[in-house]
């Protein structure tokens, strides 16, 4: 499963060294690697894979474990073989890695995978790739594709929270735990409770004795895992009760070469970190247009909250009828709601300086792509630093801080070399990353956050606003 694309390449490289000894002798690298045109290598790689498939097919290598069974029995009977021999043949016919092999050939070693879902015969593979790992789900029925992918994402986030990172090393280091987790969060293909907080109470890296002492504890766990608030333990205690709310908005903008805005929308996320004792009941208020209009206060800065999605702790029916966002929060960090506003009030176009000039954008990074045959770039910038990064074919212009309303110009001259084999330049758009603190481009404002708990403690709430763009603010040219 963890085969990388490198493998065939290495075989090809060795074959070149054998086929063209004179080139290998000239080679500068230690291993005698021959310099080859990448296109040729790719071509040979495809051929190699095709040959592999051909060989497997020719020897009738059968990947399915079910197909040969009847024949094994039939042949066994026909030759009146002993039961033992037939059984051995049967066992040989079962290849437990079969499904993994099919996936490896069809997806992992295929350089041109054009869909996250591959269906072969009546078997379908769903995959999500993280770094060099594939999270794969296999089914033989008409599965709910959205559910499968959401489950894969959830698995990744659980793994992250358990091991910190998801890569080959982490998987190998924690394989027993992963088996345990999967057994718990998935039963017969049906995802079960997958709330990280609850899972951590009973799937741990420490050893648990299955003694009588644990019984009472277990009953508590099971009640929680199946209960209505499966995301929260009942016995949370903090000395200081605090809740942090981060309103983070990611600006998606693409602008054409002529400067017309093709698309401008904002992905809003409200993240909450709740460090609250007991089972707190929270009420959350935003400048929701519907509520404000009803109260006729006539505030101009209300936003429509129609297209938002909430964490499962929020009571959706209550929001629908009374427009209040009420919930019992999970312990720790979670995403309370997501929102996309299509009608951005303040057009964030034109080099992101259209906001109030009391604010300032920080960490502005502008990446200007250059043609592939660029050798050097002379840059002139009024502030910040601009540098040509040959490895990525971009000029990176970093500005630590821009005051609102300011305008800046970049001018640069690129030296190009003439090349013989012209590769097509994909002309990626100019990409702008930035952060603006205490500003939301949709105009969303948190009006209140109330916490009610039996013990009636005092809680401190903090709210932060951040508008940012990373990889989503693009200007074509």
């Amino acid at each position, binding site marked *: 499963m963890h085969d990388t694309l490198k493998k065939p390449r290495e075989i090809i490289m060795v074959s070149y060294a054998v086929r063209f000894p004179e080139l290998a002798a000239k080679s500068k690298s230690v291993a005698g690697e021959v310099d080859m045109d990448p296109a040729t290598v790719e071509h040979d790689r495809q051929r190699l894979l095709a040959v592999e498939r051909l060989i*497997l*097919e020719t020897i009738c290598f*059968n990947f399915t474990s079910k197909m040969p069974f009847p024949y094994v029995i039939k042949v066994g009977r026909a030759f009146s073989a002993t039961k033992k021999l037939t059984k051995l043949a049967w*066992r040989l016919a079962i290849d*437990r890695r079969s499904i*993994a092999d099919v996936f490896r050939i069809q997806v992992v070693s295929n350089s041109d995978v*054009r*869909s*996250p*879902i591959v*269906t*072969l*015969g*009546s*078997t*379908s593979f769903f995959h999500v790739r993280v770094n060099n790992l594939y999270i794969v789900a296999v089914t*033989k*029925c*008409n599965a*709910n*594709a*959205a*559910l499968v992918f959401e489950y894969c994402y959830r698995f990744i986030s659980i793994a992250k929270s358990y091991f910190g990172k998801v890569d080959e090393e*982490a998987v*190998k*280091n924690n*394989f*027993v735990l992963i088996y*345990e987790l999967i057994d718990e969060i998935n039963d*017969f293909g*049906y995802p*079960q409770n*997958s709330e990280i907080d609850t899972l951590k109470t009973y799937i*741990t*890296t420490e050893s*648990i*004795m*299955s003694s009588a002492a644990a019984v009472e504890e277990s*009953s508590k*766990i*099971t009640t929680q*895992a*199946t*209960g209505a608030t*499966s995301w929260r333990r009942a016995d949370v205690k903090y000395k200081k009760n605090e809740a942090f709310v981060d309103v983070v908005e990611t600006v998606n903008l*693409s602008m054409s070469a002529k400067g017309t805005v*093709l*698309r401008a929308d904002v992905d809003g996320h409200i993240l909450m970190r709740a460090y609250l004792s007991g089972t707190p009941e929270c009420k959350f208020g935003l400048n929701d247009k519907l509520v404000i209009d009803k109260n006729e206060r006539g505030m101009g800065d209300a936003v429509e909250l129609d*297209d*938002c*999605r909430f964490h*499962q702790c929020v009571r*959706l029916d209550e*929001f629908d009828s009374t427009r209040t966002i009420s919930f019992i929060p999970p312990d720790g960090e979670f995403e309370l*709601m*997501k929102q*996309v506003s*299509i009608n951005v009030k303040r057009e964030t176009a034109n080099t992101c300086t259209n906001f109030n000039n009391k604010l300032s954008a920080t960490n502005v990074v502008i990446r200007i792509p250059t043609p592939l045959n660029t050798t050097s770039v002379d840059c002139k910038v009024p502030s910040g630093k601009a540098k040509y990064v040959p490895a990525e074919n971009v000029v990176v212009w970093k500005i630590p801080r821009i005051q609102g309303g300011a305008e800046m110009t970049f001018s640069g001259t690129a030296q190009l070399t003439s090349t013989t084999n012209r590769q097509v330049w994909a*002309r990626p758009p100019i990409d702008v990353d930035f952060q603006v603190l205490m500003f939301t481009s949709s105009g969303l404002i948190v009006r209140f956050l109330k916490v009610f708990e039996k013990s009636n403690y005092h809680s401190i709430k903090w709210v932060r606003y951040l508008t940012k763009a990373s990889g989503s603010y693009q200007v*074509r040219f």
Partner: protein
Amino acid sequence: MASQAGQDAKFFQRGKIQEFRAELHAAESKDKKFVKRKTVLKKIVANITMGNDMSPLFTDVVQCLGIPLLEIKKMVYLFLVCYGRSKAEQIHLVIPSFLQDCNDRNPLVRALAIRTMSYIPIPVVTESLTEQLRHCLKDRDPYVRKTAAICVAKLYTADPRKAEKGGFVEMLRDLLLDANATVVSNAVAALSEIGDRQDGVIFKLNLTVANKLLAALSESSEWGQIYILDSLLRYVPERHSDAELMAERVIVQLGHANSAVVLTAIKVLLYLMNYMENRRLMDYICKKMGPPLVTILSSGPEVQYVALRNILLIIQRRPNVLKNDVKVFFCKYNDPIYVKLAKLEIMYRLAREENAREVLAELQEYASEVDVDFVRKAVRSIGRLAIKVEAAADDCIKALLDLIETKVTYVVQEAVIVIKDVFRRYPGKYEGIIPVLCENFDALDEPESKAAMIWIVGQFADRIDNADELMDDLTFTFMDEPVEVQLALLSASVKLFVYKSQSETSKALVHKVLKWATEEVDNPDLRDRGFMYWRMLAINPAVAGEIVLAEKPAITTDSDRMDRGALDQLLLHTGTLGSIYHKNPETFIRNAGGKALADSPALNPLSRQVLVPIARSNLPTAVQIPGPGPPEPPKDAPEALGVKPILPIHGGSGSDSDLIDASSSGDHNGDEDNDEDYIASPSGAGDPYANLGGAFGGYTTDEPKPHTDDLLF
């Protein structure tokens, strides 16, 4: 609780059975806290993971079951799940320990035991499982009950008849009324699994149970909500108001953060809308469905892809959803290719006169990208846009000519193919550009584009001065061309002759081609067509000319969407694999059952007319499991499956067109027909060329599809 990082990677080394056996035995002595045996077991599990057969260690591993350490127990159980099936004669060794765990005081252990047992489909195990399962389904702990519910589904897979005889299906049914929402949702999931089997019992819901399930919705986990929502499709509304009330309760779920919940809720709403009457409410629902769909587009690319493929279906059936949102489907530079291709298709569907300019600008942008398939599809979309939106046709043609200027071969070829259709759509308007096309003749090397160009030359031979020279050049390689091109050449040379019957070259040419087609070629289609032309020309050249150059019906794109009955059926699979491929699951998955809208008095008359029934073959003696609560009125099973006289209107041939006209124009049906979202195109139905799927040939070549070749299987 802080999880220290595991250090188990070292266990991933191939080990020998003998060594492991020796290690396990050695570990038995002086094993403080069982650390030694835990280590050996980890090595064994690592080897299972790598695919090495560890089954000979069966008896040795089983010995470890006595150790009171949950971690070890779980590893041994994992071993049993892997090899229990192939060790039928030794499995009895573990039964006592299973039974002991089934009666453990710890609910987690009880659940673990039945869960593991149900994964081993061997008679000895299932036998003892059935005993235990009966108790566990009534366990006082909800965690055990919810696990037991799924175990019933597994038991049913292993031995359907035993599960039925044991009364487990009825017990599951009782669990639908459990006080705990998680138990309810798992019972629903298990019943659905059983109901989806071809030999399974029929699982249907009546209003009372459906409402009970809806009530459990708010307390279920996100996955549980999906199972419950999914099961609502098993409820057939008898009155409009039932469907409407239920929809109002489901709408709330559109705000859920889990996109699978949202898509399943949309599936239920689309389903219920077939049984509704209240036009206002339906419009409201359509309006409500748009924003959540747009929000899914900010999730991961895989989920986006699922949503996009579904949106494509939804907007064909309910054009009001997302009508004004074409901009959100503009491709981002870093979208994966599958997302881009799906977005492109939606952009074309949503293009209208008001937004055609923006869409065209985007398509032009895409036509200069690097991915060949994407570029081709973009170029074709420009042509399709020209055909669809008359007001934009001029700009589209200009864009196509600009693209031809680039001289990139695949761009030019795509452009030629669509321009052919543009000529058909707007006769007498754009023929002025033919010279530009002729200049690029040499760039064409694919059959489809070549055939298109040849068609253009033949059709407009009277406007091309050197048409006979061109045709003469083209026929030079006649015998080496693919059939598609040969057919085009044959027709074109006949047309040329009709236009220029005085010219000697064209006379010689048509003679030459007819001779080749009838004498040298093996293909029967080509030969027959050759004979037909030859005889026509021989009998009466004037009439032959009239026939060959007869006025062609104009083509439209109004009807290049799926027909409504098929759409209604496909939308029952919203969010599933079938909706990705736009295919009904029974057509590409072995043993998959189909779905069809069930008939009821509340079913929209138009939906009923276009109902596509499914033939559920080899139905066993139908064991109908009524839900708890008041019994349903007795109903004939086949009728419920939609076997009703159905009007044959999917012929697509001309004679059926009146029928479609009558059924699709709302005036005829008066108030009854309140479902006009789907605008059937009366003109399209009668047009034999209406189905542009064929006209646009390769447009769908990159369409996602399951691979039917079972080569690797």
